[in-house]
């Protein structure tokens, strides 16, 4: 029973990680057409800034993470203003995010006082507080609960904003046809920074939620980004509910195989790609028709 609860909790945890990164990518993609590969990387930067302030310089926790998130938001605004806006197409911007990803991975090492190591411990004030689950020899930490709650809130918020508010509508219009949107009076110069600042800020928040649970580090970044990419494809880069579903499914599969079938080597690592192949086969079988389906799919 404990094992089962453990599976669920850890599965949820990783599922939340993947969903947060994936949702951030889907947000940016649906509103700008750019696949933001650097999404996870920005969060790590924010995390290291916060850690720097909190652990190295003794700042209190909440201001430190706030500054970290602010750094991420500002980075988003700057990136939009000086890079994305200058580029002719979303494809180029995607390559720019790839470059940014490399840059950020290296940045953590380049800053000399960040220890030049792979990872740091960064605890939240709730470090040792837990909630035990009745009937099982396992407990959920407050950090984890906050993570779960945040993901739910974030999902609901994003869904609402994109579908129900005028801002969300404006974002989607700009993504579909920037020129027509401008003619309709939507000021792209206002919408784009909001999108990028928001997306990068969300990445910052993600890391702040994760750092107490996992290490604040760089190495898992690539793996998480790749898995989040897989998950976004489950949702076709468009559908938020499918993305979250995919994230949860992936993490559950990974964790269950790790805990229940530890002898089958490599299976838990293979799940992202098995899911990818399933998604691809589904599209493959539908051939060109699939293209039209997504073209008329509701946003």
């Amino acid at each position, binding site marked *: 029973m404990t094992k089962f609860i453990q599976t669920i909790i850890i599965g949820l945890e990783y599922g939340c990680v993947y969903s947060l990164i994936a949702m951030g990518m889907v947000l940016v993609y649906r509103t700008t057409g750019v696949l933001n590969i650097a999404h996870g990387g920005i969060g790590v930067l924010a995390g290291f800034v916060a850690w720097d302030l909190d652990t190295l310089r003794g700042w209190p926790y909440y201001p430190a993470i706030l500054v970290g998130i602010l750094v991420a938001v500002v980075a988003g605004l700057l990136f939009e203003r000086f890079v994305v806006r200058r580029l002719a197409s979303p494809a*180029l911007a995607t390559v720019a995010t790839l*470059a940014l990803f490399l840059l950020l*991975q290296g940045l953590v090492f380049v800053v000399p006082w960040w220890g030049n190591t792979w990872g740091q411990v960064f605890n939240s004030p709730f470090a040792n507080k837990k909630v035990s689950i009745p009937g099982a020899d396992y407990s959920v930490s407050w950090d984890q609960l906050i993570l779960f709650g945040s993901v739910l809130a974030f999902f609901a918020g994003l869904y609402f904003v994109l579908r129900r508010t005028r801002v969300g509508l404006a974002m989607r219009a700009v993504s579909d046809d920037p020129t027509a949107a401008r003619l309709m009076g939507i000021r792209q110069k206002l919408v784009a920074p909001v999108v990028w600042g928001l997306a990068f800020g969300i990445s910052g928040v993600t890391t702040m939620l994760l750092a107490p649970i996992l290490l604040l580090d760089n190495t898992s970044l690539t793996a998480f980004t790749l898995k989040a990419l897989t998950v976004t494809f489950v949702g076709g880069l468009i559908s938020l509910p499918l993305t979250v579903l995919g994230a949860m499914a992936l993490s559950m599969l990974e964790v269950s195989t790790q805990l229940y079938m530890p002898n089958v080597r490599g299976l838990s690592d293979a799940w992202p790609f098995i899911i*990818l192949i399933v998604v691809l086969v589904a599209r493959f079988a539908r051939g060109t028709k699939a293209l039209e389906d997504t*073209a*008329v799919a509701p946003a």
Partner: protein
Amino acid sequence: MNRRTLLRGFGLTVLTAFVLTMPYDMKWAGSSFALDYGVIIGMVVLSVSVLGWIGEFTLAVVAQMGFGLVVVNLCQDAGLPFLVILPVVIVSSIPISVLLGVFALRLRGVYFAIATLAFGYMAQKTFFQTYLGVQGGFGGTESKAVSRPAGFTGSESFYYLLMGSLLLMALLCWGVSRSRIGTSLTALRESEAAFSVLGHSPGAYKILTICLSGAIATVAGAYFGMLQGLVPSNYFQPALAILYFGFAVAGGMGSVAGACFAGILFGALPKYFDSLSEGKLVGYDQFFIGVVALGLVLWAPGGFADIGRRVWRRLEGSPPAAPTVSTFEIDVRDATAAAAEEGLATVEAP
């Protein structure tokens, strides 16, 4: 003799001299191993860049390199001489390329790239780990050794073999791009629908290009094994392929010279960084590459090839070329956008 011819002659001479003496010129920065590594990465980047001709990009190159390694190992175990091994490696790459080509017929843009990534990953987890054993590798504990051909065992001499091979590959690619096949590929890239409706088969050209790319990557892998002497089985990380794709874009997707240049530069640079800083600057190379790539995207989206062309025109005194829309923009949006452009998606009008 006008200025242009003089300039070209001069440039060619300087380039040839540099290429011929590079291992010795760069001794101050580190051993020739770095250069050898760079040349091999140049081959890999060339194989990625070649796919720009059909407007796609592949992330399976790392797996294809691995296959090259395996084939070389098998051939050397069977005692085949080097001159026989090379053609065998090339021919063995064809079935895999054809398989990837089948994917390319139905999938576009990011979906095709993801399919190649999945393929690479599957190959690593199933094929390589079975062949090499999970802890094993080439030259590792469960050693499957791969050795360099006789006469080229030193780093410098191996460089000449590598550089010669790279130049041959580059020449072949350049020749293809200038031939009628190249014209057809340009047409295919600009409008696949028009191309096919006119009675030409896009599939054949796509598979041809993928086979070319695959052959280059597989040979690169064979050389890689010979260079390293030790390759662990978990080397074949699919994520590495994304890095090589980045290099290809930096060089100018579809440009032969740009790909070679970018590959050699970004391949050798980290190694030189390492030897120059005596191992203290970890991660600096990634940072540097990221900065360079960002700069390129902003100011020279055509990559090094674009810069090279512009600089050369300036030197030659020719008027600057009219700005053309880059036809190498790989549509990273899902294939919907591409289909809509081709008039296949009926989101609006009849």
